[in-house]
């Protein structure tokens, strides 16, 4: 599933494997494509998400730092770090995909 053009980019620094799996499951359930990038420099999830969203052709990026997950969307108009309260990594993965499909978030 890696290396495709319409991918959501997931930038990780020392990701917790379970958290990453759950994010990936969320994307898969919603029918999205993804690409994971391991960062060598330490950064927090928000920074990772912003960086990832700029690399994604769909403008959807996910940042994972240990077990913390953040989403950012990069549009032609501007970049948005969205805060979702109390969401599981699975739901965040689903929402990142729903964004690319122009469907309401859960």
């Amino acid at each position, binding site marked *: 599933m890696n290396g495709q053009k319409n991918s959501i980019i997931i930038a990780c620094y020392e990701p917790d494997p379970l958290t990453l799996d759950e994010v990936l*499951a969320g994307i*898969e*359930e*919603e*029918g999205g494509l993804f690409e994971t990038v391991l960062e060598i420099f330490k950064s927090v999830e928000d920074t990772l998400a912003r960086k990832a969203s700029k690399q994604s052709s769909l403008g959807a990026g996910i940042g994972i730092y240990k077990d913390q997950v953040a989403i950012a*969307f990069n*549009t032609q*108009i*501007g970049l*948005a770090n*969205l*805060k*979702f309260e109390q969401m599981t990594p699975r739901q965040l993965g689903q*929402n990142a995909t*729903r*964004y690319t499909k*122009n*469907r*309401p*978030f859960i």
Partner: protein
Amino acid sequence: MIIAGVDIGNSTTEVCIASVDEHGYMHFLSSAEVATTGTKGTLQNIKGIHESLIIAMQKEKLRISDLNLIRLNEAAPVIGGTAMETITETIITDSTMVGHNPDTPAGQGVAVGRTVPIHKLKETYINESIIVIVPKTMDYEVCAKTINASNEKIVGLILQKDEAVLVYNRLDKKIPIVDEVEGIEQLPIGKIAAIEVAGLGMTIKTLSNPYGLAKLFDLSPSETSAVIPISKSLIGKKSAVVVKNTDGGMQETKIKAGKITFKSQKNQSTTVSIDAGAAAIMEVVHSIQDIKDIEGERDSYVGNMLYDMKKELSELSEASEVSVESLESVTSEASMKHLAISDLLAIDTFVPVKVKGALAGDVAMEKAVAIAAMVQADKLPMTRLAKQLEEQLNVPVKVAGVEAVMAAIGAMTTKGTQLPLAILDLGGGSTDAALLDETGEVRSVHLAGAGSFVTMLIDKELRLDSVQMAENIKRYPLAKVNSLYHMTMENGEVIFFHKPLPPKLYARVVVVMDEELIPIITDLTLERIVTTRQEIKRRVFVTNALRALEKVAPDGHMRHIPNVVILGGSALDLEIPELILQELANHKIVAGRGDIRGIMGPRNAVATGLVMSYLSEDIS
């Protein structure tokens, strides 16, 4: 001399202030409007009147003590009420059907087999197709492994969690999967079941077809006719499950709806059952020209509504004669006798209702009749209110003029009008019409069904479960949020934002209030909501405009009315006046939104009329 006209309406209290100079010329000074406090005609109104007078007087840097006279309107003693009677109901007995629209089912096609829970899969040795039921406690990885390892002939899966795609991607053999079935424990085990998942961009075809079900379950012609409610309620779904159950199934029952009895002035009575539909009811309303009273059968929604309305108004008019403490005992059935329901408007509709006993929140469209009614008393206790107001403000207060007459006088300040002039006052509780002719004679009529009826219909037809939301949809334009930074309005205009919109708005249909965007949580498209909204407004207001004008027109011929001025709160609506204009244009009548004194728009007609009528009174 400074005088104030005060109009207490069902929802707003409006004030107009004018001064009369020594030559007898009148100068309009200011006006104001606030929400009516309490029910129209009660002493609670005083708070609102006081507030609106302060606002209006402050605009001219005056105080209430500067007022020489307050003129109150003789408010029309009518109260409107609305109710809806659902006349069909779908009940699932023995939990045999699931029809829903999960966001992401997986696979596609139809499968028939015996239902087996996944933890019993290893112990099962049956030589036939099986459909496996997976509870939410099982993870998708484990589920897929178990299915792949099984030697049984598994043809379909029913999941409780939202994991259809995850399981599907890990299966060696691809089968249709239905997910998000909340009440999965209630599915019968060991029975023959059929599942169907629709293809890309389509809805299910086999289970929503009675003959499709007949083929799958080998049904006889009589059994086939019994599955019609099942098929009907599955139309338009993306996935479905049906379990064959010999001793049960699904029923579409007719609810025993109440009856309505109309009494004419000659004491002839006609009874119609509500399940006969709106057309039959309205035919009766039309055929009886002089309705004396309308009664509903007790313990039906409509019967209760009619009773409650009479009770409410009787409490009001009683209150003028007795003290508040003894109110309860006085409001007896006997005192309600002199109150009469004078008009009724019925509309056929389809409302989505949750299916009783459904496992996944299934919704079925049910037939319903919505009814608005109006009760009329002899008089509201306005003199009591006037007296109290006079004491509190220390300004002379006079109850002057009938509401309809005052509205007509006020409406004449709209440019381009001439006598005879008809007004249509589209309020919250009732649609009122009056005709003022060259001789100064006024004929008026109050009809049931107006703004609050529209709100109720929007609420029910779109299944919003929120009157506030329905009210917003009625009043404000809608938009679809396309991205985090822009949205498309219902007229096609695109609006951009500098800051990202909140996530809860993304990809949703929103109500665009002045500064605020409110998301509508629904699967319905923007177009569908707009069409429903317009259709409801047309059915209520256009129907009522025609009914009302026919009643006040000279000789009952509408074409004898040259112009109609549309007034009232609903005249401010974005489309109601246009809908009425389009219809009245067919009858060659000039109709349009009023513009009181050229500055007030459709508001303040009665208050303006009250002030103006002072001049004629003063001379006489």
